[in-house]
């Protein structure tokens, strides 16, 4: 099927701990389709980050088949994985991780530089991305001059500026207060519907969960439930702010 962004079949991830092996993911089967807005939910240590790593081509499974954007991870070289990430995958981290010596504009521009996009196109895309996170007034600020919420919005802009197929976010709201959390979630959902970008979060934040259209629950490295939700109506989209 064309629309499968991620397809995991019987995926195991084992970590070697001295003589023992620890299975962080056990026979995980998962299909994510284009345009989904879904979250991995589960207690600490359940394997959420491990799963994001694999989907993000930062790590490989120890057993099973994993297809990401029509590439089998088993026979992907580091170089190919890097190219896949730079073209099609955006990342949002728990801490915002902007490059401190660069301005907001330049931070957002960086993924486009990696792709070798020409300047006029870069400018247009950066402005569009910053507009969608409501940060056009902070173009020339350095990360140190931004609040946590603003920083995470820059990180979001950076992750979506190249219009990726898939954005992965590991606990994106963990370092934000409630108001900022709602703000960025609205923005992400807005981006999801505007550009049809697929989002996959890991979270145990109830606020995040309330925005999800699909909730995948992990316990001890296994998927224990996978439900499609109707996000509550009271969450307005970013454009209403």
């Amino acid at each position, binding site marked *: 099927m064309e629309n499968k962004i991620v397809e995991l079949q019987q995926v195991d991830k084992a970590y070697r701990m001295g003589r023992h092996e620890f299975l962080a993911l056990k026979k995980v089967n998962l299909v994510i389709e284009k345009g989904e807005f879904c979250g991995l939910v589960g207690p600490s240590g359940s394997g959420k980050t491990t799963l994001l790593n694999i989907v993000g081509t930062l790590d490989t499974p120890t057993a099973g088949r994993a297809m990401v954007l029509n590439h089998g991870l088993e026979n992907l070289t580091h*170089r190919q994985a890097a190219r896949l990430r730079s073209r099609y995958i955006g990342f949002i981290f*728990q801490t915002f991780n902007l490059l401190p010596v660069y301005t907001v504009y330049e931070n957002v521009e960086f993924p486009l530089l990696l792709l070798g996009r020409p300047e006029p196109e870069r400018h247009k895309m950066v402005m569009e991305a910053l507009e969608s996170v409501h940060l056009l007034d902070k173009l020339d600020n350095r990360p140190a001059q931004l609040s946590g919420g603003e920083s995470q919005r820059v990180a979001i802009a950076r992750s979506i500026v190249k219009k990726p197929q898939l954005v992965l976010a*590991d606990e994106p709201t963990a370092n934000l207060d409630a108001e900022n959390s709602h703000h960025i979630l609205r923005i992400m959902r807005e981006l999801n519907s505007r550009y049809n970008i697929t989002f996959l979060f890991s979270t145990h934040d109830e606020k995040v969960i309330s925005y999800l259209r699909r909730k995948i629950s992990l316990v001890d490295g296994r998927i224990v439930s996978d439900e499609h939700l109707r996000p509550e109506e009271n969450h307005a989209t970013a454009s209403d702010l």
Partner: protein
Amino acid sequence: MIRFLLKGIIRDRSRSFFPGIIVSTGVFITVVMYCWVQGIFNDMFSVTARFQTGHVKVVTRAYHEEEKRLPNDLALLQSDSLSAALQQQYPQIIWKERIRFAGLLDVPDENGETRVQGPVFGMALNLLTRDAFDRKILDLEMTLTAGHMPDNTGEILITEQFAGRLNIQPGDTVTFMGMTMYGSMVMQNLRISGTVKFGISTMDRSTIIVDIETAREMLDMQNAAGEIVGFFRDFIYRNETAADLAGEFNRNYSHSGDEFAPTMLTLVDQGGLREIMSYTRTMMAVMIVIFMFILSVILWNTGLIGGIRRYREIGIRLAMGEPKDKLYFTMIGEAALIGLFGSAIGTVLGLLVAWYLQRYGVDLTGVMKNVNVLLANKLRAQITPVSYFVGFIPGMFAIILGTALSGLGIYKRSTASLFKEFEE
């Protein structure tokens, strides 16, 4: 992308500042040191050539073997025809006969009794003609501190320091006591016409300068000369040319059996200069290489520290899909750029200091008191074409090597832990 990296270098001073300072300091020291040694060499060569060896020199083989004792009994005979022949055969060189000799200088009191006495070293060359080449080569007019240049046979110049020690002045008469070419005693009165100061400790201690005809008469050396020295017309010593000339001459003239056969020596054949020169060259090369590696190690460490500071940045760039090779080479590119600036600054500063040392020199009269090498008391640096890159290339090499080593950490970095690292 390059603009982007440039911005990073410029804004993050610690990224460029310390490596830059380290490189430019290293390059600076290398350049100054090189020019300094080069200058000392140049000076040593030039002084030695002027006073002692010429650029090339013809002596008898026997004289050469015992040169230290100034053996005029082994001098060249028929020296006028030999020097004429040399002049004809090698017109690119100016040939001059010289006699060097040693003895005692005796200063009498009013009654003709010895007042003071001291060992003396004499140099005899063509003095009497006003535009004599030797006058110019030794810069005698300039070094004259009192009196005048000799006008007649029997008149001599004496170094100011020696005159002071003997307490004599221009106009006084002294007696030279020594040996003729044939081994009999000589006592000859000489009139002091002037005093000179060369600024070379060895020469200034106890030297008299005598016209060659005066010396010939005194030492019974008619139509003989201890040595015939030759100088390239532009006074620039060219070792290869000199060696070629000497080789050719010696094939034609130095018959193996005859110890009185003339033999031609180059500047570096004499006074152990060749050894000094090759030794110093080797030492310089070794020092520059060692220096370069010390610099590399320091920069390697600086690079490691930089790598720690930029740990997150590198992680983010890896996550965003920058290939490791590219990241590694951009690091090296940044280093090369910093190295370029650092080396350029170091070279410019080094050349400035070298230029100052070349122009004004450093006066080491005090230190030189006991030096027996022919070296001016005022040492100067010399800027040569090599000076422009002698520090530059090692500087670039060191920073690139240092960064290449420290940057290898990028390849050990696992992408699998990036999400974890960014949790804090």
